[in-house]
């Protein structure tokens, strides 16, 4: 089983890639901090000198010293921001890649398919963006600001112990409140973010379905529903935001009180001659200097809270929903047979059984057709055969290996799937046919396309280099299906699985297709879900599925009879 992944673990793993950058950023940060802290000390010396009997030259010397320290601080600050940006986005991209890899390689295909893409996109991109922004803009500075606050307190303690004690007590109270507020806000942000992901899932779906909604008079519906959803989101996010940033007013109050304490004590001491006016000015400057980091921290803490929420979500993405690691057995060499032994199945989260005790045998090299009414369970048979789900009962075997345990590399090499949901990628025709394998010669691609009667590809202005898919040249669904078919043709597999592959073809193309399948069936095993009687004639056997059961297996003359009387399909 997968070990548990925590938000902190995710961050640590991401940080490993940019260790050098992180240390560099901290070093630059330390220099800029030292310069910040030195400032008020120089002002104290300056003021004390000014009130004593001194020369203008000595004062200018202090002022120039202050200037030099300021210049070094500026440069160190810039270096810090450059290094921290690089480190922050480096960590974010490492996490992004990891989550994306997990989603597309480890989650069950059926789970990915059933989830709105907007939601998954938000999971991969949205989360990582928050992580990157938070680390780049807040992660390092929050450390710097804490160090600055601590440094200021230490100096105050040494100079005016009474005031330092009071202020330190206040800091402890504020820090305690900060931790409480952070925990509360993290929870609220997590909830708000999940809600937001759902909303954008809906928007993504609605945009994808806009050509359907428009003629149905529902084109205004997505915006209307979004309006209501966003109102609810506003309430949830505002609670999280104000709760998280309540830290700012709190620090303001802290600042007011500590200033009162520091200055009150300072005035008393000044009256007794215990300190100089320069020290009193310095107390003021330090307390004033505390204001900025504390204010910064309130917005940074807000970012850090979102960072923690995003890290937890990323950790959850990495643990949840992963497919249990199968046994990863390779398929045996030579021709492959297929066997369903007493298979029963219900989709996860559903009580309805889709298959009951299905028994099928497809000897190596033969071709089996699966027919049945819509919804009878044909698609499920193929899902199980592709190893996309594991039967609850019985076994599904390819070459004697459980389909769900087949090593994916071995599966890809030995089995071809022509799916009803074949998708054209936003890539060239060549890449779509070779499936991103650039070792396949063009002549081979053309040969296969010609064999499928897809001569129109040669007529395209850019030929095989024509970009299709989203944003590219629009193809009809039939054309897209031919390209998907060609993709399968190129692979020399031992088992071919076809899912309603002929459903979108016009009669002429369908005839060519049937002939082709017949030829393919000669030297490999074929399992095909079909709806049209004509395509069945190339099959050695045809299983009729009714309500999740194999009702009958037809052979020879029975298939011919079925092909002639297609209404038999729905007995």
């Amino acid at each position: 089983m997968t070990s548990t992944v925590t938000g902190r673990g995710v961050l640590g793993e991401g940080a490993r890639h940019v260790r050098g950058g992180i240390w560099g950023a901290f070093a630059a940060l330390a220099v800029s901090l030292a310069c910040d802290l030195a400032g008020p000390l120089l002002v104290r010396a300056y003021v004390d000198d000014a009130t004593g009997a001194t020369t203008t030259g000595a004062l200018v010397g202090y002022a120039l010293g202050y200037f030099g320290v300021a210049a070094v601080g500026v440069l160190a600050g810039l270096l810090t921001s450059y290094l921290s940006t690089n480190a922050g986005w480096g960590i974010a991209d490492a996490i992004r890649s990891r989550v994306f890899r997990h989603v597309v390689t480890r989650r069950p295909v059926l789970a990915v398919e059933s989830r709105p893409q907007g939601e998954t996109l938000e999971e991969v991109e949205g989360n990582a963006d928050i992580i990157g922004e938070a680390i780049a803009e807040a992660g390092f500075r929050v450390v710097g600001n804490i160090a600055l606050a601590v440094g200021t307190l230490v100096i105050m303690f040494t100079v005016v112990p009474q005031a330092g004690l009071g202020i330190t007590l206040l800091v402890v109270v504020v820090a305690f409140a900060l931790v409480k507020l952070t925990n509360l806000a993290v929870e609220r942000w997590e909830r708000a973010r999940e809600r937001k992901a759902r909303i954008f899932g809906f928007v993504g779906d609605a945009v994808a379905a806009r050509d359907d909604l428009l003629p149905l008079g529902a084109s205004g519906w997505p915006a209307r529903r979004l309006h209501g959803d966003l109102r609810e989101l506003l309430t949830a996010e505002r609670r999280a935001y104000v709760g998280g940033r309540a830290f700012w007013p709190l620090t303001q109050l802290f600042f007011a009180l500590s200033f009162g304490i520091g200055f009150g004590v300072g005035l008393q001491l000044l009256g007794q001659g215990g300190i100089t006016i320069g020290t009193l000015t310095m107390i003021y400057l330090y307390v004033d200097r505390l204001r900025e980091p504390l204010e910064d921290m309130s917005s940074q803490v807000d970012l850090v809270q979102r960072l923690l929420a995003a890290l937890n979500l990323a950790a959850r993405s990495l643990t949840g929903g992963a497919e249990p690691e199968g046994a990863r057995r390779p398929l045996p060499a030579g021709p492959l047979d297929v066997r369903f032994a007493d298979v029963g199945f219900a989709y996860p989260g559903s009580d309805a059984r889709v298959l009951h005790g299905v028994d099928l045998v497809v000897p190596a090299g033969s071709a089996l057709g699966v027919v049945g009414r819509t919804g009878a369970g044909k698609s499920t048979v193929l899902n199980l055969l592709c190893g996309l789900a594991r039967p609850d009962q019985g076994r599904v075997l390819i070459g004697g290996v459980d389909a769900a345990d087949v090593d994916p590399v071995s599966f890809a090499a030995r089995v071809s799937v022509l799916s009803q949901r074949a998708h054209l990628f936003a890539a060239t025709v060549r890449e779509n046919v070779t499936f991103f394998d650039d070792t396949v010669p063009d002549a081979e691609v053309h040969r296969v396309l010609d064999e499928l009667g897809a001569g129109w590809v040669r007529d395209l202005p850019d030929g095989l280099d024509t970009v299709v898919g989203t944003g590219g040249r629009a193809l009809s669904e039939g054309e897209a299906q031919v390209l998907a078919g060609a993709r399968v043709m190129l692979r020399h597999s031992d088992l071919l699985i076809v899912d309603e592959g002929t459903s979108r073809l016009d009669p002429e193309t369908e005839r060519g297709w049937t002939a082709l399948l017949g030829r393919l069936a000669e030297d490999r095993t074929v399992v095909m879900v079909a709806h049209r009687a004509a395509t069945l004639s190339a099959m050695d056997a045809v299983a009729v599925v009714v309500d999740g059961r194999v009702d009958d297996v037809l052979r020879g003359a029975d298939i011919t009879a079925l092909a002639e009387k297609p209404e038999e399909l729905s007995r």
Partner: protein
Amino acid sequence: MTASTAPPPAAPEQADRGGFVRALARLGVAFAPLYVCTLLVWTVVHGLPLVVGYAIGALLDRAVAAPTDAGTWGLLALAVGAMAARALVLLPGLALDFTLIFRVSARLKERAVAATTGRSSARGPRLSGGDVLNRVRDDSDEVAEFLGWSADFVYRTVLLVIALVVLLRTDWVTTLALAPMVGGLAVAGLLKRRVGALADDTRARQGHIAGRITDVLTGIRDLRLGGRVDWHVEELSHSFGLRRGVQARHQMYTDLLSGLFRNIVMFGTAIVLVVVSTRLVGGGFTIGDLALFLTYVGWLSEQIFFFGRAVARHQNAKVSHERIGELWRGFRADRPVPAGPPLTELTVTGLARRGGDGPGSEPVAFTGRPGDVVLLTGPIGTGKSTLLRGLIGLDPAVAGSVRWNGREVLGDADWWRSPRVGFARQGAGFVDGTVRDNLVLGDPAVDEAVMARALAAVDLAPGSPELPDGLDTPVGAGGAQQLSGGQRQRLALARMLCRPAEVYVVDDCDSSLDAATARALWRTLPVRWPGLWVVVSHNEDLAAVADRVITVRKAGA
């Protein structure tokens, strides 16, 4: 408050040409009460430190002479009280600011979504779903946040003037010596352009990556079974790296810009110290004045720091406004469905695919009356789907003539709306939700009885194994595991039948159905939903019962 309940404004196209600033001004006016409240509260928040600094200056001057005098304690109480008051005003200030930004952003999101779904994919901008989503999600926030910042512009400028008057009255020589602090603004102009270009680049890459991720998710089944997932993951990781390079440079320039101003406080303090060196010794300048100047220098640089960041954000917001505006450019909301008489005769002549991506098709012609079934058939790649889409105004890439009782309606996207037309197609899109959500589509006229009748007609009875939870059965968006291709086709048909129409346009919704289901379907639908049916199908039973069968051929074939 009232502003949020109003529907998104129906901004005409020309309004978009007014530029970014005018667009912002319109948004500000739309949310005027909220905007003004935010403005007032934040003026107090940022104004109180000026009061504090003034009190401290006076306090130090008194402290030199009489550290424990009642007047000194009074000044300390004033300073502490002003700080505490600031803390109290902050909470409502934060809530107001957040509400303003969120509402403005929501308005932009709604407008972008309304414009995107209000036009067919062929008529709107050609962007992938991921890219559209990216713009709706992020660019709206960027613009709204900048509107929030614009309130800062107003009150910070007012406060800046007040602060300068106080300083000039205290010591004008030292105040003038601070002038070089403002010189940083010139450098900002140079950096600003670079930031804008890099922001453009970053956002473009983001859109591209989002599109690719969507593409991989859609084709996940083929990629996983074909063993090509890892290749795509590597490719995308590579794209992430390239984006990061641009992103880091963008951040560096943004920080350079903001850091430049932030560090002006140090230089400002140094300037004050050098300038007052002579004056302190001479006695014309007190320690209290020095404290006032040092406090105000800090405050001033905070303001300049803000203006510097705002300049950088301005560029980002402008780019974002441009990007999200692309979604609604040329779109006019709330166009009514033109009035017209009920259909007596639809005359189609010379309708053919022209331009666009595909090759042309031979023109088709037919005449249909209510109750007729017109079947379009023919080899793939001849553009039957484009013809149907063109017929009802979804796709402009068609030529010819379509007359509704003699009135020319080809390409009139507004004419072809429910309750005039119903449309169902192969590969129809659904939203993640229940069957009910997907049938109702927000229309209260679609009630249980209407849905039950439509579902029964397409052989998807609630409670059957196909819809175990009836209308509450979940429908996944992408390619749900519970719904097969045939079920999705029938659900698309049911969705169409749930609303009245005079012309039913069906694009290949029976290809995944078995013969008996398809035959029962075509026996029922045209009878129970009388109207003109224009159908693309290869179904031979339908060919037998159709009133007209038209074969579409490629041009020149």
